[in-house]
């Protein structure tokens, strides 16, 4: 009975290098954290060719999904801001009329406006301001003194308690016959429609990218698992319980998914920061100067978590199905 033991004792003890390698589990907190995020002491291959390709696929899809999400949030927010600003802005146009001097009409209109509840501010544009507005069409210095120009009054109203527009228009005409209240309703409606379309388009792109990401991560996980089928089978045949195998496989794909997702997230954050920088220096139509608003970054962080979750759930269901087929 004791013979093999004695035989073994006659062999020289393992070299110190081997001892050191066998003792790799003896790590501090930093080592444990690293093991959780980066390295796995799992029985699954830490990073094979399939592991690497899964990481790359997840990274690429998370990058696209983060871009789509960031774009959808930004477009949604920008068009909402736009719509709000538009509906809060009115203009009173005071045409030159024979009844009153234009300045007097402007004064009278301003008085009506400042007396109206719901009007936050009313500012009359000077003739110089009006000329500046015409400059793109007529060129600088081409507006002669005797050219009759309408005077404009820029009004900001309280969006939550707007004044009665019809009553306001009537009172304006009574006070200043040349005054016309322009509520921008027609082109405002068109702009709002355009903004809404942009918003829906962004959400549709986001939905398609999200669905594609889930599908591709699912397929890549299955392919990765197929490559690890031998590992799963051997573990099964030497008596590992389904629970153990599923846990190992899940942990493996959690690592791969998170790693890929974080790479994709990093790339998309870099892209948004770069876009923000570009918008700040060169100016951009839709993109706010900050690139992506700070409050949207946590939403982006959800993308790799969802990708990792998809990988883990797929891996678990696939491996359980495989094991049940094995007997």
């Amino acid at each position: 009975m004791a013979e093999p033991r004695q035989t073994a004792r006659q062999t020289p003890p393992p070299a110190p290098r081997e001892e050191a390698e066998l003792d790799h589990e003896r790590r501090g907190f930093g080592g444990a954290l690293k093991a959780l995020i980066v390295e796995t002491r799992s029985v699954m291959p830490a990073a094979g060719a399939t592991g690497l390709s899964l990481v790359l696929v997840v990274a690429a899809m998370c990058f696209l999904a983060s871009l789509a999400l960031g774009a959808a949030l930004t477009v949604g927010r920008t068009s909402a801001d736009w719509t709000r600003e538009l509906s809060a802005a009115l203009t009173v146009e005071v045409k030159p009329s024979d009844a009153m001097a234009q300045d007097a009409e402007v004064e009278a209109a301003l008085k009506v406006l400042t007396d109206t509840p719901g009007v936050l501010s009313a500012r009359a544009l000077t003739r110089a301001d009006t000329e500046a507005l015409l400059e793109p069409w007529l060129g600088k210095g081409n507006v002669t003194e005797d050219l009759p120009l309408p005077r404009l009054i820029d009004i900001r109203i309280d969006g939550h308690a707007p004044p009665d527009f019809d009553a306001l228009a009537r009172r304006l005409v009574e006070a200043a016959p040349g005054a016309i209240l322009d509520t921008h309703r027609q082109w405002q409606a068109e702009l709002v429609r355009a903004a809404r379309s942009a918003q829906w388009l962004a959400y549709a792109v986001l939905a398609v990218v999200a669905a594609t990401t889930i599908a591709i991560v699912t397929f890549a996980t299955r392919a990765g698992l197929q490559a690890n089928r031998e590992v799963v089978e051997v573990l099964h045949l030497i008596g590992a319980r389904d629970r153990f195998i599923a846990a190992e496989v899940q942990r493996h794909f959690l690592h791969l998914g998170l790693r890929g997702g974080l790479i994709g997230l990093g790339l998309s954050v870099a892209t948004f920061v770069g876009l923000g920088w570009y918008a700040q220096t060169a100016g951009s139509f839709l993109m706010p100067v900050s690139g992506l608003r700070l409050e949207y970054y946590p939403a982006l962080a959800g993308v790799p978590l969802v990708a990792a979750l998809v990988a883990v759930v797929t891996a678990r269901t696939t491996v359980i199905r495989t094991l049940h087929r094995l007997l």
Partner: protein
Amino acid sequence: MFSREPTPRPGFFHDTLRPMIRFENVGMRYGMGPEILRDVSFHLAPGSLHFLTGPSGAGKTSLLKLMFLASRPSRGLITMFGRDIATLPRAELPDLRRRVGVVFQEFRLLDHLTTYENVALPLKIQGRPEESYRADVKELLAWVGLGERMMAKPPTLSGGEKQRAAIARAVVAQPDLLLADEPTGNVDPEMGKRLLRLFIELNRLGTSVLIATHDHALVEAAGAPELMLKNGRLTIRG
């Protein structure tokens, strides 16, 4: 490593009184194909040593697959350690598999793990902490002559080294039954004899051993009973 205390495993004494494995009129086919095994009946007693011989394609590997619970029979009755495997809940199969050590024909070592990790795998899957088995695994590796190759990964091992690693993995958890599929197929006759001595030693320590082989010299050297498969039918000699 191989010292065998009177085991506290429930049912042990009961098990010693009845065959570890009993096949009664077992037939097996893959899908709708022809029967690979036909009316196979035999039993293996605790502590026995048997050879399984037969020409290629006779069904040796299929018979072993039934014994290490990788396949189900198409018909007939198989009892392992007193349990009818047809009525056994799936959740209880891992416990039976852990009592059977298998040396696969193609070794089936995991290429990404070191030799040490491969051999320690059956203990690891039982949830044992590494400290509790590290010394035993190293001792076993030294015993099969792989003491210096512990950190090598299977792709860098020679055929003989892989074979010994596979054998070490099969016996590390001290199984009640050891099944070996062509265990001397990849080694020179000298190594073949050494491996046979290893199996005989394990058998002497109480493990039932079944060796599937083509090697008649090996069978004659051991002088153990022979299960002969031919055209899916089994006859017993010796």
